């Protein structure tokens, strides 16, 4: 997406060399000064953690920052929209969601009573698919799946970009996956405990999540068993606003096995699916989703990828990330999704400064 200021893409070396009459000059400060100002006026990274703004209004005040009164007619239309969404759509959707969640819990518990057999697996798939479909209807989801021939196979790892908690439902609407995640309390915990009886999802205790080797080991065991469903992982680690793909955590790419990349792109015109977890909690997020017009998205299944010879996990992760970004029409940023909450690592800072001083030493008259 476009920025608001013009950025000069000349590399640092060229630009500073242009100003040089001797080796080090007062002028070197210009380059960094300007870069600093550009960063203050517009920051590529922080932009991605807030929702994308629409060019034309879709009658949802939440997506229009500069909301102000335009005309009586528009306000009337908007009020009608509010009534339709809150008084008609919302109760309908809420009921559907309740039915979906209840059936999921009851269904998977029932199937879980059966002894392990192919019948059980079949029934588990039926239950998961049906309940997923009910839940997608509950959000008025309209999903187009592309390239279904590339759908993730058993024993593989499905990797997708992350925009919201409903990403998982979008994907399970079309196939069965083994979910990976942390154990939660409350309603989510109940669902987790019920579903794991029917299907081997991988739920980790909070303490286990901290131990990376344990996590990798468990996932490796799951993937090694070719009869088990493909696991679903979101390597960004946090929700991004669906205009870009941020750095993938390399852990998922160290497990081995075949990676099936999937790109998910939401159409923001009908409703904003991005979960800004620092601004809204999950309940108000779900409320916003259920009072939008619809959730419209495109899902592209991409051909499987494996780690090549001589490629390490990080390079492999970047390769998969580029493929997903290209397919979904998203930009790629080398930044870590963790920047939503934390600060830039010192290693990044040092890189830039090292480059500059290396340049000086090369050009410079130091002994």
């Amino acid at each position: 997406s476009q920025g608001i200021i013009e950025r000069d893409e000349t590399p640092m070396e060229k630009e500073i060399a242009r100003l040089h009459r001797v080796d080090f000059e007062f002028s070197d400060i210009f380059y960094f000064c300007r870069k600093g100002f550009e960063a203050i006026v517009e920051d590529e990274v922080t932009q991605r953690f807030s929702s994308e703004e629409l060019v034309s209004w879709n009658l949802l005040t939440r997506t229009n920052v500069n909301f102000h009164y335009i005309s009586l007619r528009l306000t009337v239309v908007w009020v009608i929209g509010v009534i339709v969404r809150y008084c008609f759509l919302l109760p309908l959707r809420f009921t559907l969601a309740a039915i979906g969640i209840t059936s999921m819990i009851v269904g998977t518990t029932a199937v879980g009573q059966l002894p392990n057999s192919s019948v059980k697996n079949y029934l588990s798939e039926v239950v998961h698919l049906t309940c997923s479909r009910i839940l997608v209807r509950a959000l008025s989801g309209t999903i187009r799946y592309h390239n279904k021939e590339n759908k993730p196979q058993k024993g593989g790892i499905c990797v997708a970009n992350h925009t919201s908690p409903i990403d998982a439902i979008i994907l399970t609407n079309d196939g069965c996956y083994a979910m990976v995640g942390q154990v939660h309390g409350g309603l989510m915990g109940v669902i987790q405990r019920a579903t794991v009886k029917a299907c081997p999802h991988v739920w980790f205790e909070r303490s286990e999540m901290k131990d990376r080797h344990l996590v990798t080991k468990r996932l490796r065991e799951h993937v090694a068993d070719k009869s088990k469903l493909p696991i679903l992982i979101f390597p960004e680690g946090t929700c991004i606003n669906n205009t870009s793909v941020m750095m993938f955590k390399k852990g998922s790419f160290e497990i081995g096995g075949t990676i099936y990349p999937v790109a998910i792109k939401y159409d923001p015109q009908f409703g904003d699916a991005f979960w800004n977890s620092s601004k809204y909690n999950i309940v108000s997020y779900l409320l916003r989703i259920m009072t939008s017009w619809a959730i419209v998205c495109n899902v592209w299944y991409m051909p499987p990828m494996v780690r090549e010879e001589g490629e390490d996990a990080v390079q492999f992760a970047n390769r998969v990330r580029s493929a997903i970004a290209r397919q979904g029409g998203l930009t790629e940023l080398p930044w870590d999704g963790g920047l939503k909450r934390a600060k830039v690592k010192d290693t990044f800072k040092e890189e830039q400064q090292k480059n500059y001083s290396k340049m000086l030493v090369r050009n410079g008259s130091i002994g």
Partner: protein
Amino acid sequence: CAQGSSHPPPSPLSFSLTVTSEQIEHLHRRFKQLSRDQLTIRKENFDSIPDLEFNPIRGKIVHAFFDKRNLRQESDGLADEINFEDFLTIMSYFRPIEMNMDEEQLDRFRKEKLKFLFHMYDSDHDGKITLQEYRNVVEELLSGNPHLEKESARSIADGAMMEAASICVGQMGPDQVYEGITFEDFLKMWQGIDIETKMHVRFLNMETIAHCY
């Protein structure tokens, strides 16, 4: 439902800042984002910009925003916090040259930008860039490289300072001490060199760009 801002962007400002009202609106939005919807920004608010983190002179840039000399205030020293008008004042040092400027305007323009830069170097606000102040800047620029010793940074600074002295004062006798670069000397150093195009931030055409708020 989200409403518009509780404090609307100010109308075009009194001093000569020829940016469009759209650009002011964008800057205002950015200001609100940085200040987290408060009316003023403090130094800590600049910590939330990842792109700025690896700029070696980050400290000096942030400092420049709060420097009262740059804010065209009568008193000296540092402000604790700045409002949107101050923010725009600092931004105005980076506006690009316009086609219809005459000689006098261009000259004033150039002087302003150079003054801004001068203040960056002159950290103790005494109107002179001393050798020590210059060394500080060089060290900051080179601070990220652990392989570069302090001595090397010093000799770079000393070399550049001597060069500057020769431009400003000409040949010095062995007993002469060069006190520091005054603003007039600083201007002399930059004569004939085009700095205006190096020190500007140009806004893109604003029509119907979808962006993130």
